């Protein structure tokens, strides 16, 4: 009877089970939720710490427990990273279309908190017998997220790139990716991170005729495909995305990596 209130779109309260600080200002919040358990890697939820705003966050753990990995960049994300065990957050979701598995030997590239949706994707790929290679990028070695966990999962298939060269490749992950793409025999590319990085990877993949999927971020209000505030071209990031494939990206090249809507609906240049 309570059909609608059982929908994924409905708000529900969850208690934080524990918080793990991943790097300075970046924390993972664990919680239990029946619907998030069954999410696809790449899907996101709307998270509302009462008293603050509601914001989109990718699921960084999918399984018996769920988690989000939050980087403190403003009022709401700071509020989230200040929460502790037992605190209550309201969530709704999971929303959007996650990653689709393609190929046998995919190359994954994660920049900064962009690793959040990539981690459960790696886990999913491994459980399905694919052979993923991941380039984990960050500004410095201290800001590499989930390093131990990913090393355990991937062994030598984990590559590191830092902007300052404090670990692994010195320079942007996308540049390192181009090198690997030329060396290895990858058959698909996945990316999540700064949009400029993803745009570079898109071009790299297109040049090589490789299928690609990237996860985009846009300003979100409703997250249920109605309000249009997350528009990029004919797509709603909240519903048609957040994961975009090459075919979709080709239709939004004037915006991808370049422009986004502000909360009033005006197109503004992307600065990251």
């Amino acid at each position, binding site marked *: 009877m*309570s*059909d*609608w*209130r059982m*929908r994924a*779109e*409905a*708000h529900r*309260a969850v208690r934080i089970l524990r918080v793990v600080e991943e790097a300075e200002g970046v924390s993972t919040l664990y919680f239990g939720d029946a619907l998030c358990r069954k999410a696809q890697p790449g899907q996101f939820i*709307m998270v*509302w710490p*009462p008293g603050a*705003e*509601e*914001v989109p966050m990718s699921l960084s753990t999918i399984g018996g427990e769920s988690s989000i990995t939050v980087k403190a960049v403003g009022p709401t994300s700071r509020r989230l990273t200040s929460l502790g065990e037992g605190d*209550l957050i*309201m969530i*709704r979701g999971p929303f959007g279309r996650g990653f689709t598995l393609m190929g046998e030997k995919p190359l994954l590239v994660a920049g900064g908190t962009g690793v959040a949706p990539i981690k459960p994707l790696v886990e999913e790929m491994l459980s399905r017998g694919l052979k993923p290679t991941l380039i984990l990028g960050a500004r410095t070695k201290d800001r590499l997220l989930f390093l131990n966990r990913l090393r355990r999962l991937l062994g030598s298939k984990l590559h590191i790139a830092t902007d300052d060269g404090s670990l692994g490749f010195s320079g942007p992950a996308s540049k390192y990716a181009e090198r690997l793409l030329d060396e290895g025999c990858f058959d698909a590319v996945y990316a999540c991170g700064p949009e400029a990085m993803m745009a570079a990877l898109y071009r790299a993949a297109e040049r090589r005729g490789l299928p690609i999927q990237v996860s985009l971020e846009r300003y*979100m*209000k*409703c*997250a*249920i*495909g*109605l*309000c*249009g*505030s997350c*528009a990029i*071209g*004919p797509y*709603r990031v909240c519903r048609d995305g957040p994961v975009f494939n090459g075919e979709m990206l080709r239709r939004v090249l004037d915006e991808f990596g370049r422009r986004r*809507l*502000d*909360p*009033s*609906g*005006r197109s503004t240049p992307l600065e990251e």
Partner: protein
Amino acid sequence: MAEIRLAIEIAGLNLRNPVMNAAGILGLTADLLRRVYEEGAGAVVTKSIGLKPRMGHPNPTVAIVEGGLINAMGLPNPGVEYFLGELEKLKAGGIPVVASFFGETLDEFVEVASRLSEAGVDALELNCSCPNVEGVGILGSDPGAVKRVTEAVKGCVDKPLFVKLSPNVSDITEIARAAERGGADGLTAVNTLRAIALSIEARRPILSNVTGGLSGPALKPVALRCVWEIYEAVEIPIIGCGGITTWRDAVEYLLAGASALQVGTAIMTRGLRVFREINMGLRNYLEENGFREVSELVGLAHES
């Protein structure tokens, strides 16, 4: 067998079918509205556009309840100046466009309407019923104010003007007649019902604006009653809106007196295919019941 036609004529507009998106649903950009048209809508309706850009209310701006959705977006919009660019793109595609608009004063209403009208939209929809904005929301329940605004806008535009009514009134026929007397070419019925959603865990309202507007199937019986009552009170055509999810809902609105339809919340539950679904269902209903045109259904339930 005679051919079934879904095409309609309403207030001088010729549309390939009677189903549009509702105002505020995907209406912020030309690209999204073009997609709505490609998915099968007969016309597209823009987000309500005001004079100045507005960011809208902070999130949370939506909450699900049994049978519906409560929203308090706070009329985010890029402002009329900016939006003319989107309209240009849309009109380049030859898509029938209804521009929804609002103002916070009578002059603003007139100014925004004039500029949208000059930009070549096919019709205007005056939103005097958004329950979420002070100074605007109140308009919807005062017949005198509705008549004045309608008159003022009609005096400055040469496009068909629809006035969108609020269901949050004691007697909607009074407001409908006021709009008709003010010169409205049609009425859109209705906007959302003022509502609230609380979290018993957070012990507070979910929406940052506290109250919001209820849409979806929970709104439908009230909206359908509004259409029914308005149909008996005025001569101008009605666009029915509120909870339309399936072709059955669409037929109910037509029988109650609507000449065209708008769909909002069902895009959440059914996706954008809802336009094709409704039109297909309508076509079958017409065929199975021996009708040839949508217009034959309009108001039919009043004759029983």
